[in-house]
């Protein structure tokens, strides 16, 4: 009897997820059974997936065939190192989200919990199948299951108009993207009719068709990931979905699109042209800047995080662009550096963004509020959520010593090598692009300080916030899990980078492991210690030591006395919660400095108003520049077609008759 391979274990896990989902149908209205029994089981399956991915990473690729699918095209599955990286991500992050969800879902309106559990676990299983798929057919089927199950999850509270609208936009963009992906696969088969990925690798595409395949894939996967200009579904769908679903979509599902883009551009297409990298780099930079600018001006906490996800996807695209540029010039060591940054950022972003979305879920449950303007001071009643969210904020702002900084640091290191490119102007333009990356990272700090400061700090803006309660134990467990992941990735990045080496070696033939291993576990020096190094452990120890030692020495030499009194605020006594900045107030400098970036509608109160009201509404330019014209065009075309469709059966019969005559005429031998 052959021993159990990793890929078999993953298939078992996928079946487990599907079974857990179906089990929920046995008692669809029993919230306790679904939430407290099935979701923890799903989390265990997630752990199994994560652990299996960890074992498989670095080993030889494993393949399997499933006897489902088309008659002569069974599902081909393959677990290689690239897929394993994302399998780890899926398993570990979903384990945290599932255990949180076990505490999160309550009796409420919308989809019955059993059905919700089915959708949720099918979503997980389909994402796993997307990562394992080794032919276009299996990939597209899993991709569609993923899109549909997540659509139903987004529209859980389908009684609200705006949620149905958000779900519709999501479904529309997902399908436009899916068509592009399908066409890209079609181009890559090169007309040979072999839809397995192995067949596509064997094809030698001309530069033209290769470019077509790449651009289609960039568009298609970009639509799923949220690249400009097909990002519009993200800020609609994330606030609409329940928080664990937002976390899963932002943390994991967006990464499957990154996986697809890497799979196509570095593995399936074969050749790489330098300008593909430039296109990805430019699209990524625009997306990142756009995302972070809009994140800073949002007043809804989940929309803010959704725009921040767009920003992070932009940064990932920048990294992919840099990888492709280096790869096209056969500078594989540098391409490996950029690719490691991409993969690491996938893991880091999955951790901290899921964490932040789950924190908004707890806030939402405790306060019933999503609008930043009605929150505040929650660090008092919700200390657990507040302190764990702080870890997400520091990582999200790309600050040491947490995980977000490591990938940003690796990316900037890769940028520092770009003057070595053997191209006349590329070697000057690309380093300057690093300036935009730096601006993005710095503005992400602004957006997240706003997010954190307005939700958790300050005075409570509404009186009922006093009754807010902290997360329940299962929720806390999920949050601690993800915060721990963020801390671990940030403090011991070398360990993970050693593991990622297998994936970069598979795609590019080079990795970073040798040099990282030379320096020991505590020091991260991807090129050489003279050139650049970063030791987050020392970092953390120094700050912690100063904190403790400083506190001790101050208390020993002087004293630790504390008196309490009302806030001073320059002697002004009437400090109500309304005197603090609102979300709109906090981002006022951004709106003022970068005004033309936004489409704003403002209403200023006049001095004679009895009840003065200030409102500001910031909208996305793309709706008006791109989507409304397209919608109008589609409307116009369908109006034209409607003229033909009079609704009278006699006319339709005549159309059929005319068509028949024409066909007979044309098809005459």
């Amino acid at each position, binding site marked *: 009897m052959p021993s159990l391979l990793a890929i078999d274990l993953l298939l078992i896990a996928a079946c487990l997820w599907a079974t857990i989902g179906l089990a929920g149908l046995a008692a669809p209205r029993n919230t306790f059974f679904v939430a407290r029994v099935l979701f923890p089981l799903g989390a265990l399956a997630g752990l199994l997936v994560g652990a299996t991915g960890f074992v498989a990473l670095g080993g030889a690729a494993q393949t399997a065939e499933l006897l489902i699918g088309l008659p002569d095209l069974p599902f081909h599955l393959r677990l290689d190192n690239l897929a394993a990286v994302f399998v780890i991500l899926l398993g570990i992050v979903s384990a945290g989200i599932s255990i949180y969800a076990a505490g999160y879902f309550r009796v409420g309106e919308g989809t019955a919990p059993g059905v919700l559990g089915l959708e949720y676990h099918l979503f997980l299983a389909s994402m796993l199948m997307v990562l394992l798929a080794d032919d276009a057919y299996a990939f597209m089927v899993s991709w569609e299951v993923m899109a549909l199950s997540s659509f139903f999850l987004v529209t859980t509270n389908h009684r609200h108009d705006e949620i149905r609208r958000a779900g519709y936009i999501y479904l529309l963009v997902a399908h436009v993207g899916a068509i592009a992906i399908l066409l890209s696969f079609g181009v890559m088969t090169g007309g040979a009719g072999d839809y397995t990925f192995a067949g596509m690798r064997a094809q030698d595409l001309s530069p033209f068709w290769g470019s077509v395949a790449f651009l289609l894939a960039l568009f298609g996967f970009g639509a799923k990931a949220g690249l400009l200009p097909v990002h519009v579904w993200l800020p609609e769908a994330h606030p609409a979905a329940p928080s664990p679903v937002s976390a899963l979509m932002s943390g994991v599902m967006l990464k499957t699109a990154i996986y697809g883009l890497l799979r196509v551009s570095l593995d399936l297409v074969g050749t790489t042209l330098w300008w593909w990298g430039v296109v990805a780099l430019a699209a990524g930079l625009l997306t990142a800047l756009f995302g972070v600018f809009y994140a800073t001006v949002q007043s809804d906490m989940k929309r803010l995080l959704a725009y921040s996800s767009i920003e992070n996807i932009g940064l990932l695209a920048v990294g992919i662009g840099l990888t492709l540029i280096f790869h096209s010039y056969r500078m594989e060591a540098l391409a490996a550096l950029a690719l490691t940054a991409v993969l690491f950022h996938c893991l880091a972003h999955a951790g901290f963004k899921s964490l932040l979305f789950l924190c908004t879920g707890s806030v939402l449950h405790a306060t019933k509020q999503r609008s930043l303007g009605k929150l505040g001071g929650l660090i008092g009643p919700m200390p657990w959520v507040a302190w764990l969210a702080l870890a997400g904020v520091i990582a999200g702002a790309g600050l040491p010593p947490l995980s977000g900084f490591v990938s940003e640091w690796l990316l900037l290191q890769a940028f520092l090598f770009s003057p070595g490119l053997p191209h006349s102007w590329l070697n000057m333009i690309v380093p300057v692009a690093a300036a935009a990356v730096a601006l993005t990272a710095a503005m992400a700090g602004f957006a997240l300080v706003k997010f954190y400061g307005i939700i958790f700090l300050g005075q409570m803006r509404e009186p009922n916030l006093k009754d807010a309660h902290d997360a329940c134990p299962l929720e806390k467990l999920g949050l601690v899990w993800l915060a721990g992941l963020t801390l671990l990735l940030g403090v011991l990045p070398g360990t993970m980078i050693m593991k990622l080496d297998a994936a970069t070696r598979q795609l590019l033939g080079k990795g970073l492991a040798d040099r990282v291993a030379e320096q020991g576990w505590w020091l991260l020096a991807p090129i050489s210690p003279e050139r650049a190094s970063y030791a987050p452990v020392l970092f953390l120890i120094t700050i912690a030591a100063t904190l403790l030692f400083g506190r001790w020495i101050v208390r020993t030499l002087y004293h630790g006395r504390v008196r309490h009194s009302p806030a001073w605020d320059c002697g002004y006594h009437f400090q109500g919660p309304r005197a603090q900045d609102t979300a709109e107030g906090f981002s006022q*400098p951004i709106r003022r400095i970068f005004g033309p970036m936004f489409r704003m509608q403002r209403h200023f109160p006049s001095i004679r108003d009895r009840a003065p009201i200030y409102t500001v509404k910031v909208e996305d330019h793309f709706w008006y520049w791109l989507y409304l014209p397209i919608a109008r065009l589609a409307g116009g075309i369908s109006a034209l077609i409607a003229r033909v469709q009079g609704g009278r059966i006699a006319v339709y019969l005549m159309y059929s008759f005319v068509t028949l005559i024409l066909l007979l005429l044309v098809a005459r031998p």
Partner: protein
Amino acid sequence: MISLTGFLGQIFAVALALALAPLLTGWINQCRAWLQNRSAPPLLQPYYMLHKLFHKDVVLAHGASSLFRFAPFIVFGCMVLACAIIPSLSSDLPFAPAADALALVGVFGLARIFIALAAMDVGTSFGTLGGRREMLIGFLAEPALLMVIFTMAMIAQSTSVATIVETLAHRELVIYPSIAFAGIAFTMVSFAENARVPVDNPATHLELTMIHEAMILEYSGRHLALIEWAASLKLYAYSCLGLALFFPWGIAERDNFLALVAALPLLLVKLAIGGALVALLETINAKMRIFRAPEFLGTAFLLAVLGLLVHLLLETQA
């Protein structure tokens, strides 16, 4: 490997930073008073201030959370770490591998986030105003600072501050025009980052344009002392970074004990001149409106990018 001299040098550098930083602040205040025809406070005034503040009780506002009480220590820790990385006397710092120049920017960013969050914690109007403005100045200044560091890193082929200093100080003297651009940009950024005059005024309270002072209004006693000390350390760190990047001569190399002895008086002289220049620039400039600050920092950013381009255009062929 970590040598004993290196280790002692490291401890000495941190101790020196802790001791000298308030002195530098005092020296700048004194110079500024002279230039403005006021009678100057004593040179040691910042030490008296710290001593007094440590003795006083902490008066904590109602509603201040634990983050408010932690933040001063974290900010202080970040600044100590920054001073441990930046070569002041010797470039042989065993601690230097912990963070290169990019991570140094991250350290300053971490301190900024904590002080801005602490400012928002009590929930007063001035506090949130200060926090918002600090983050604004921060995100405008950080890219400019990173571009300066990029230019220097490309010249030295390294982002490690110690290696950059060794490259610039101890190899043959080549004039890089890009360094001039980077130097001006760095000066502008350090004025903004340290809340000095064209962007902020460290001398006033109760002014609607304040930034740094608005954030720390609610702090008192030992917390305020730590924040003031951390602000001095930040100024010292930026000064040493500027001196190390643009005037690196005299910073001792590895295992060169004699140079280390000579480096101290040289550092004092450089800091004294630098401090006097800071006071001079603060005196001849007027504080600008907050919404002029983006123009000021945008200029710094453009100069830094220009420096980078000049380096890539003119200096890479050689």
